[in-house]
Structure formats: C-alpha cells, structure tokens
C-alpha cells in the first residue's frame, strides 16, 4: 500500500521541528480522492481465518480439559470402553478426501472452469454426508451414554463439535455450489469460494485434533 515515496527522515523524526528549520517539507498537493469504499481482495478470507483461530481456541479449551482429566485418571478410557479404530480411520480418510475435493473446486474456479468447480463442490458435500453418516454410526456403536463418565462426555462433545462445524460448512459449500452454477465465480473473483475452502479445511482440522485426542492419546503411557 505504500504508494507514496517516503523521505528517509520522516519516520524517525523524533520531535516536530521548529518553524523555519523544518528538514522535511511535505508537499500537500491535491488531496487524494476519498478512502477506499470497499475492502480489498481477500478480506473475507482473512476474516474467516481469524474466525477459525477464535473457534480453534474453543476446541483447545475442550481438548485441554480432556488431557487434564485423562492425566488424573487411573484408567483411560474407563474399563469396559472400547472405541475401536475402524470408524475413526475411515472418517479420517473421508475427511482427507473431502479436503482435496474442496481444493479441486478452488483450483477449478481459478481456471475459470465452472463445471469442474461445481462437480468438486458436489463431491465435497457428498463426502461430508458420508462423514456425518459415519459419525452417527460412531455415536450408535459407542455403547455408552453422554453422562456415563467423563470420557463419554468428552467423546460426544468433541465429535459433536465436529458434527456441528460440518453441518455449517456443508451449508456454506452448498451456497457456494449454487453460486458456482449461477456463474458468480471467475478467475479474478472467487474470494467467497476461497473463504469457504478455508472454513472447510478448518472443519477438517477440528476432526483431526479431536480424533487425535480421543483415539490416539486415549491410552496411558
């Protein structure tokens, strides 16, 4: 943004010079026309990134609670609880695929390829539905209720946190798919799609962090 050449002394001038001995004479000239009326490109993406950073701190609070309670427990997860590795593995693979599908949509939009972008967004939503389906299966097969023990509570909280984000992200991607079909995005103008992609990938991060806590860090030693 630094469009105006700056005299070397202007920035480090410690005091305002006295009259007559001013070392810098800044021409005022004609004023530049008013300030920028609309944000520059990438504004939505930066906003979404900041939102994800804030959102991640909520997740961090839950994960910190999980790790703290785990470190004080004799048995973790409690005896008789077997969460298995099958569902989380399949979910992880599906989540990773959805991440690639989302980026495919962004690349396609960048190449002005609306058809591929729409297909990729459709695939992303489909994979999201698959993940929801699997997570529902995980809830059904868990074999414990929400308040059975603290592992159960955190299990439902962490996976539920991902489910909630996934629902929001799928709604956003659905809107993006409709806008793609309506021809809103071109090589130069697809910032909303990029912002949606940031949020989708963040949703995937929520899964990987939650899964790491619940399924990988779930044993002592």
């Amino acid at each position: 943004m630094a469009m105006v050449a700056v005299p070397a002394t202007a920035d480090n001038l410690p005091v305002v010079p006295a009259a007559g001995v001013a070392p810098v004479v800044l021409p005022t000239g004609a004023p530049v026309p008013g300030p920028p009326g609309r944000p520059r490109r990438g504004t939505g993406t930066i906003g979404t990134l900041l939102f994800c950073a804030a959102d991640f701190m909520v997740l961090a609070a839950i994960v910190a609670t999980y790790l703290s309670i785990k470190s004080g427990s004799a048995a973790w997860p409690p005896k008789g609880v077997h969460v298995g590795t099958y569902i989380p593995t399949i979910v992880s693979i599906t989540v990773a695929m959805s991440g690639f599908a989302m980026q495919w949509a962004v690349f396609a939009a960048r190449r002005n390829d609306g058809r591929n972008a729409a297909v990729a967004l459709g695939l992303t939503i489909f994979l999201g539905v698959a993940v929801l389906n699997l997570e529902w299966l995980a809830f059904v097969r868990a074999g414990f209720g929400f308040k059975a023990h603290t592992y159960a509570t955190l299990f439902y909280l962490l996976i539920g946190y991902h489910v909630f984000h996934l629902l929001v992200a799928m709604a956003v991607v659905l809107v993006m798919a409709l806008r793609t079909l309506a021809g809103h995005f071109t090589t130069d103008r697809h910032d909303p799609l990029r912002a949606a992609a940031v949020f989708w990938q963040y949703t995937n991060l929520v899964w990987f962090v939650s899964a790491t806590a619940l399924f990988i860090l779930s044993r002592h030693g």
Partner: protein
Amino acid sequence: MAMTDTEVEEAAPPAPVDAPPASPVLPEAWPRGTDHKFIGSLFVILSLLFLVAGVVLSLVMRAQLTTADASVVGERTYRQLFTMHGTMSVFLFLLPVWLGLGSAVVPLQIGASRMAFPRLHAMALWVFLAGGAMVVGAPMASDVFHGWALGDPIPEKLGLPGRGPDLLLLGLSLVCLAAVLVMINLVVTIVQLRAPGLTLRRIPMFSWSMLVSGAVLILALPVLMGAFGMLFVDRHYGASLFSGFTGSRGGNPLLWPRLFWFGAYPMLWALLIPALGAVSDILATFAGRRLASRERAMAAIGAVGVLSFAGWGSEVTNLVSARALFVVGALVVLVPVASLILNWLLTLRAGLRGPNAVDAGKESTDRDALRRRFGATPMLWALGFLPVLALGLAGSVVSALDATRSAHTNYWQVAQQHGLFFGAATIGAVAALSFWGPKLWGYRLSDALGKLELLALVGGTLLTVLGMFVLGIQDFARHSATFSSSDNVGPANLVVSVGAAIVGLGLLVLLLDLVASQVGGRGARAGADPWGGQSLEWATTSPPPLHNFDALPEIRSDTPLLDLRIGRPGTAAAAPGPDTDLVNESPAS
C-alpha cells in the same frame, strides 16, 4: 459464512472530491443501520448504562460494609451483589466500551470509510444486547452468587440448582461471541482498509492498541466460551467434567479456575491495552509532539499483548506446579507497561520545553499556550490516568511475588484488580470519550464540569483502591459480607466507602455532562480539529459524514495532520490555531 458476503465485487469508482459520494454500503432507506460510528456509539451508550448499574450495586455493597456489623443486606444478597457487580463491570461495561470506542474511532483514524464487515458489526450489537439481557436476567431467575470468576463455589450441578447460573453462562457466552465478532471485524478493517500511504507502522497508537487488544481477545475469549459451554453441559445435561474427582468416574473441579483464568487473565490485560493506546495518542497530541519513541511504544503495547498470556496461573490459588513460572509471567508483563510510561514522560518533558505542533512550531515559552495545552480536559484525564495505573502496577508486583497466596484471597486482589484493570482502564476510557466524543458527536464536553469529574473519579478511585490495599494488608477476606468492630478494619472500610461514593457522584456528573453536551447540544461546537490532532480522524468534520471523508490528505508519515500543519512553507508563522478547521483550509492551498 456471513463474512464472505461483503466481498469485493469491483473497485469503487473514485469519488469526486467536491461532491460527497453516495453511501457505498447501503440503500438510502436505512442509512445508519450499519454505520460503524452509529453502532460504536450504541455500544458505548449500552456500556455506560451497565457501568451505572455496576456502580449502583457497588454502592449498596459499600453501604453494607461502611459500619461494623451492619445489616443493610443479608449474606446471600451480598454475594449476589458482588457477583453481578463484577460480571457487569467486566463483561458489560469494560468490554463493550472498548468495542464501541474502537469500532467508532479506528476506521476514522486509519482513513477508512467503513468497517470490513458492516452487517456483521450490526449483528454483533444485537448478539451483545441479547447476551447482556440474559446476564441481567440471571439473578431474577435464581440466585447467582459465585463471584464474577464463577469459582466461589463453582456452580457445578451438585447442590446448586436453579436457572440463574445457566442464564448467566449463556449470556456471557453471547457477550464473548459479540466481542470476538467485533474484534475480528476491527482487525480485518485495520489490515485491509487503511488509507493509501498509511502503512501498518504508521497507524495511530489507539488503532495499534485496538489491533493488539483484538488479537488477544480473539484468542482469549473463546477459551472462556468453551469453559462456559462445558460448565453449562455439566449443569444442564448431567455431565460431570467439573464435579467429583477423577478416579470416581468424575471430572476435576480444580480445572475450572485454570480454564477461566487462562481466558480471563489475558482478557483483563486486553481491556487495559486500549487505554494505553488512547492515553499515548492524547498525551502526544497535547504535548504537541510525536511520542518520544513511537517504535518502542508500539513494541511495548505489542509486548503487553503477547505477555498477557504468561501470567494466568498467578490467579489460580490451587496451582502448585509451575508457580514460579507464572510469577515471572505476571511480573514480566509489567516491564513493557513501565517502558511505555517512561516514553510518555519523555514526551511530556519535550512538550513542556521544546517547540510544539499545536502552536505550529513555536517554542513553549508562552505560559498561556502551555496552560491551554496541558490544561485541556482530555489531557487532564490522561494525566490522571497515570497515578491510578502506577498504583495498580505496584499492587500487581506485590501480588505476583506474594508467596503465601493470601494476596489472592483477601482485599489485596480486589485492590489490584480495581486499580489496574477497572480503575485505570475506566479512566482511560473516559479520557478517550472526552478526546474523541467531540469528534463522534460534534460537541465538546464541559471543561468546568470535566475538572470536577476528574477530581471525583480519579480522587475517588485512588481513595478506594488505597483503602482496599490497606484492607489487604489487614488480611480482610475478599468476599466478606460483614465485619465486626473488633476486627480493626473499620477505618479502611470507611475510606473505601467514601471513595466509592465520590466515584459514584463523579460518574453521575459525567453522564449528565455527556447528555447535556451531546444530546442537549449545550457543549461548544467541536469543529473538525478541536485539539490540534495529529492523525486522520481530525481531517474530517465533527461528526463525520456517513462515508467519513470527502477527501484525505496525502499521507507521508504517522502524523499526517502534523505534516499538514507545519510542513507547508509560509504557514508556520500564521499557523492555524487549535480551533481552525483544517479540512476546509488544506485542499485550497
């Protein structure tokens, strides 16, 4: 995402210089609904209402504690009073007053015409309003008596039924959400919407402090939201994350204060940081100087933001491990604040001795001019901020070093928090109001009443905080609802009560002054640049038009208006005085 809907469609056509452009954002029918100055002002008004409520609650508490064995209110009512007083003062006054001032002033300071996400800004106001209503409604639903940290005792499910705490938790979550949304908006605005030539290193100190404060709040408040959410789950859905102890299939009650203070400790600092920025701007303006070292001031404020995350454990009384680390953390954050104070003192000294910009390069030998600058009401507020800040810092050093931890359970903690975060931050906010209020609303506040308010608020705060420190030394427990005449704490309690009453009176005068000058239009017209300002907000009318600026001056340094005033040859001798309208003059020449 709501954030993506305000995307760039195309570059706005350059606005004609002489004709004000149409609103860039909204249809004509609803012109002010998403105007950042309007929403910011609403935040400020709401926060002042909550400040009155919080102070009234504190006066009832002080009535109870003025004399020994008093029975103005019962123990249970007293606990509700301090809970709501703390909650309102922090979450419903201090937080939104900076949200409001920041979002109203910062776009003006950086030469932007709007916020990055105007509709998100409007939404945040409604979220805040809903959250505030729920917080206020909480004690009406059922008793809320856990202290503002919700930790005395923790309202987990066992034995503490009732809807009040639930409502409080949900309301506070909404308030935090609103704050996060405003701060995201503000940070993106500062990053993306600065005027051409205004690099990030050149933004005014208040904008910089809001950027730092925003970054801290974006990371700290969600931790509180997560904690509130989990406590709500415990209470409402029968989980036991914070009840029982691990091993018995339960959770860990010791977790609550750790989670809470991990979020709340940086939050308190983030609510002081904008005061540091505002005072930096005000002191430099009336000293007629740039800050002695702008780079160091920016670094200091940034360092406060980063280091504010280091000391949270010092507020947790049951944390044994890593305590030394947190002592260092709580101390090291004070270093940049001290460096900033030194910076201010050097700036003031330069303003007293050398040439200055308000009088356009004249030496500061004219005593009347000197008195006009240093006796201006916003400057007096900024100067009054210094002793309160110093007292709070001194208290913080002691409570960080206190090995017995009693400084965290007796009145020393009350004194430290009231001095540093609530006292200093509030006086900084009032200084900002008296400095930027005329810009936002068009009228100056009364100078005569201003001195009275200053005397009452600063004097009353000093009296209150000093009395609380004495009570801390006497080891008076912080949540005591009464004391007996044999406890020897009577005189100090009386001093605190007198101080609180003086603060209450000063606040009353301040609010009447605000209403009379701004709503009643009794104040002097501010003009574009009432104070001889240095940054861009003074380059437009007061109040600014909907689009903020018709034209911007060329920006070649961090003080573009100073450059305008002193940089032009031939104008220094016939310099514009503090009340001259710079906007009308500058484009013509």
